[in-house]
């Protein structure tokens, strides 16, 4: 039954690459991505197109590889900047999911928190005449505070009334969506675009159409914050007392309580941090990538970020890479679709496949361990580590 146990060089190669447990946290996701790209290639082959060209066009469309030709004042850097512009909110949103997940909470309301933060920052700073030097930091602070407040509310409702955070988040998503739609439609609507009025350029976290070396590009300033904040989250979770308490509550509430950790306080803190990160994602999306808000629409970034977070193993550094991958695919899909004549939905299918195979990471690990036990030259002491991290009760 187990074909892997036959000692041929290919299997041996796979086992040596994947078998090292220290490297498995990186090698297994990479292997999963490889599998999913093969599956994606088969899908594209079925449509009668060349998968290699399609994958290259993803990279070209997102500014990793040069396109054969460019429009005036455009180049690979322009595309890259535009991809980074899209990548930025995704990182924050996925970090938001990760922090809540460490405490055993599942923040499915990232989209709603993003909307609140984006809206609050738009109407206060976005429509003011403040100079950029004041406006931009203020936008970030408002995003942090508003998102954090919503997150804290969800955590508090969970702690005080035992309301499942998933229900609260879903309900709040709807409430924010409708209430904000009401305010936009009543006071801030742009009759032409049917969106909210565009915010002032000074408040926008992305500098638009900046002339650099004869090119016109968008510079996403918000991105400068992503990597420091990812490391900050890492530091918070691994090196501070607060982070330690959050993690213990996530691992075992009863043990945490017994050890004298205030479980309720930890849940509120965790959701507040998560909400604040979602708030950052909101301002970088609505006051960066976009400059207006479409009423009655929740962004899909908040939902995709759940998968991105888990693809990155809920680890801040892993998230940087997993969100990059997903951003490249979604940014490159326009270009891929236009030059290949493949419907854009295929990009979504490939994203889905990547996430699908990554979800099987634990299974791959289990099979590798199993195969190594049966493998003549393999180590015998590797146990089947099949317990999945981050499994959450919903």
């Amino acid at each position, binding site marked *: 039954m187990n074909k892997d146990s036959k000692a041929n060089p290919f299997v041996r190669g796979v086992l040596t690459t994947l078998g090292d447990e220290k490297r498995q946290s990186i090698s297994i996701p990479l292997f999963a991505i490889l599998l999913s790209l093969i599956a994606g290639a088969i899908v594209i082959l079925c449509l009668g197109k060349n998968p290699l060209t399609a994958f290259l066009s993803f990279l070209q469309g997102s500014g990793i590889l040069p396109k054969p030709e460019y429009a005036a004042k455009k180049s690979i850097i322009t595309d890259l900047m535009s991809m980074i512009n899209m990548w930025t909110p995704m990182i924050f949103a996925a970090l938001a999911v990760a922090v809540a997940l460490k405490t055993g909470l599942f923040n499915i309301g990232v989209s709603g928190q993003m909307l609140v933060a984006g809206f609050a920052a738009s109407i206060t700073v976005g429509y003011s005449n403040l100079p950029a030097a004041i406006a931009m930091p203020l936008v970030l602070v408002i995003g942090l505070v508003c998102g954090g407040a919503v997150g804290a509310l969800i955590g508090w409702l969970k702690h005080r009334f035992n309301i499942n955070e*998933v*229900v609260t988040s*879903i309900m709040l998503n*709807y409430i924010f969506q409708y209430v904000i739609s009401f305010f936009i439609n009543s006071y801030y609507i742009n009759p032409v675009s049917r969106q909210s009025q565009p915010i002032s350029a000074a408040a926008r976290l992305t500098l638009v159409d900046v002339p650099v070396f004869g090119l016109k590009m968008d510079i996403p300033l918000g991105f400068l914050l992503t990597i420091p904040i990812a490391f900050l989250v890492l530091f918070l979770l691994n090196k501070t007392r607060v982070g330690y308490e959050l993690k213990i509550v996530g691992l075992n509430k009863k043990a945490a309580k017994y050890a004298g950790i205030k479980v309720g306080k930890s849940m509120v803190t965790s959701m507040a941090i998560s909400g604040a990160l979602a708030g950052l994602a909101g301002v970088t999306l609505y006051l960066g990538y976009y400059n207006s808000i479409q009423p*009655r629409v929740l962004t899909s970034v908040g939902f995709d970020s759940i998968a991105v977070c888990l693809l990155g193993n809920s680890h801040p550094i892993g998230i940087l890479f997993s969100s990059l991958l997903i951003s490249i695919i979604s940014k490159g899909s326009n270009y891929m679709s236009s030059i290949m004549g493949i419907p854009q939905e295929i990009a*979504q*299918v490939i994203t*889905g*496949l990547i996430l699908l195979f990554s979800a099987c990471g634990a*299974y791959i690990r289990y099979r590798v361990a199993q195969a190594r036990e049966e493998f003549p030259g393999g180590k015998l002491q590797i146990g089947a580590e099949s317990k999945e991290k981050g499994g959450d009760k919903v």
Partner: protein
Amino acid sequence: MNTIIISGLAFALPLFIIAIGGIYSERSGITNLALEGFLGFGAFFGAASVMVMTGGNLAGIEVPMFLVALVFSMIGGALFAMLHALLCIPFKANQVISGVVINILAAALTAFFTSQINTVLVGKPTNKFVLGVCAKFTVPGISKIPVLGAFFTDIYYYVPIIIVVALFMTYILYKSRFGLRLRACGDNPHAVDAAGGDVSKTRFIAVMISGALSGLGGICFAYSISASFSPSIYAGYGFLAIAALIFGNWKIGPTLGACLLFGFARAAGYKLAQTLGLSSAFSDIIMILPYVLTLLLLMFFSSTNRAPRALGEIYDKGKR
């Protein structure tokens, strides 16, 4: 008042059947965030089979084709749910990530296939199957009773079907041997194993039932609210159903209450906006009614809420 009951019921029951699907999956121990994807794919499968069978021309045969759509949406939902079951059970994937992935895949696949099928049938790659609205009927006699009669007036044909299916599924879950096993799988899978039951198989079937019921709910939404199948089916009904089943403490009876609350509050909101003659902007404010009401009620009723004990955990025989 009557319109509130009529349209409230038409919204609440599809939601309820989706929520029952969710209960089946979650009571067996498999977290199911994929309801949204299941209902979308099920509705797509039902709508697409009708389109393919009739060649895109529905005129005159709506009612038999509606039944065909119902059956195929359940089959489609169950088949698609196998993907979630495969990922979660034999492949030991994280159930949350699997659920989210299923939703992403369902939206992408249905949009892609809809335009492909439409290209073949009508020659245009539109993303919509126009289905029309499900026929309605009124029970003679009883419908004349004030207030109560509204429950028997202008009923969509799917309403009695859903009620029958819901009663049957309730019976299975609470009174049958399989239902007992299923609920035990969610609370103490090791006990099921010790008693000679097959945890994986039970959970697999539970997830497939979940898909079939979600598909049924999805096609009912397609035949009532939007009168078509299009990407607008992914309007968050699946998440609403999840909220309803958690509100209902993973039990079918209270979940029905939650769904009726959503349905009636939603219909009342619409009616209120209409009678007050409010602009569409103001009706948005009234639309938050069901959600605010839910949150307020949860503050009083959720102190005893408890999820199935083994929910979201991958079953590992060797674990103590």
